[in-house]
């Protein structure tokens, strides 16, 4: 199993450009998440999905959009990129347990710079 894969690994965008960060998991997990990590900070939840066709906002959703058309894929769309979106983006997935710790598995991250 590849686990959670993310593409691209690195990207430089100009202000106002748009792009899609790809995320795929092969563990048949129900839940998927997008986080961003700014320097010296913890991970902040952008969006999450509890299953295909269902998404919801996290802590910092402004400037992003997501979709979940399949169980495996959860792309993150940046429209009108801004310097404040310079960050490392992590995708994660989990089975989605109701009781007990629901371990999240993370991808390797995408380092995005907006100039």
């Amino acid at each position, binding site marked *: 199993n590849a686990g959670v894969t993310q593409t691209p690994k690195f990207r430089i965008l100009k202000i106002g450009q748009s792009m899609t960060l790809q995320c795929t998991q092969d563990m048949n997990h129900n839940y998927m998440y997008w986080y961003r990590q700014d320097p010296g900070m913890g991970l902040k939840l952008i969006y999450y999905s*509890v299953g295909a066709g269902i998404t919801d906002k996290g802590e910092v959703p402004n400037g992003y959009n997501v979709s979940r058309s399949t169980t495996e894929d959860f792309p993150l769309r940046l429209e009108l990129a801004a310097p404040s979106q310079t960050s490392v983006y992590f995708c994660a997935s989990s089975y989605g347990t109701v009781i007990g710790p629901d371990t999240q598995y993370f991808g390797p991250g995408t380092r995005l710079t907006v100039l």
Partner: protein
Amino acid sequence: DQQVKQNSPSLSVQEGRISILNCDYTNSMFDYFLWYKKYPAEGPTFLISISSIKDKNEDGRFTVFLNKSAKHLSLHIVPSQPGDSAVYFCAASLVTTGANSKLTFGKGITLSVRP
């Protein structure tokens, strides 16, 4: 308002000695606490968790202690090894309708284990 706090940004210990990483939280409704480990250029990986109904959980060299009255948890690594050098994130899970999967992360502690 930070609900999960890791107030010490870094810790350096000698190989073979104990590493103690601390974490404080403010929300008494958190029901699970997790530690994630992150190497540079990789995504976080799950290390160990503890339920709010326990005060200790052990897994090999790693032990997590929870003091609910003080809203404090700590991760003990004994003995510390150079390969343990990484950033350690404390995270807390809050039960929400349908799942307990949403995590709140601290800023992380950089552990350096000196040979």
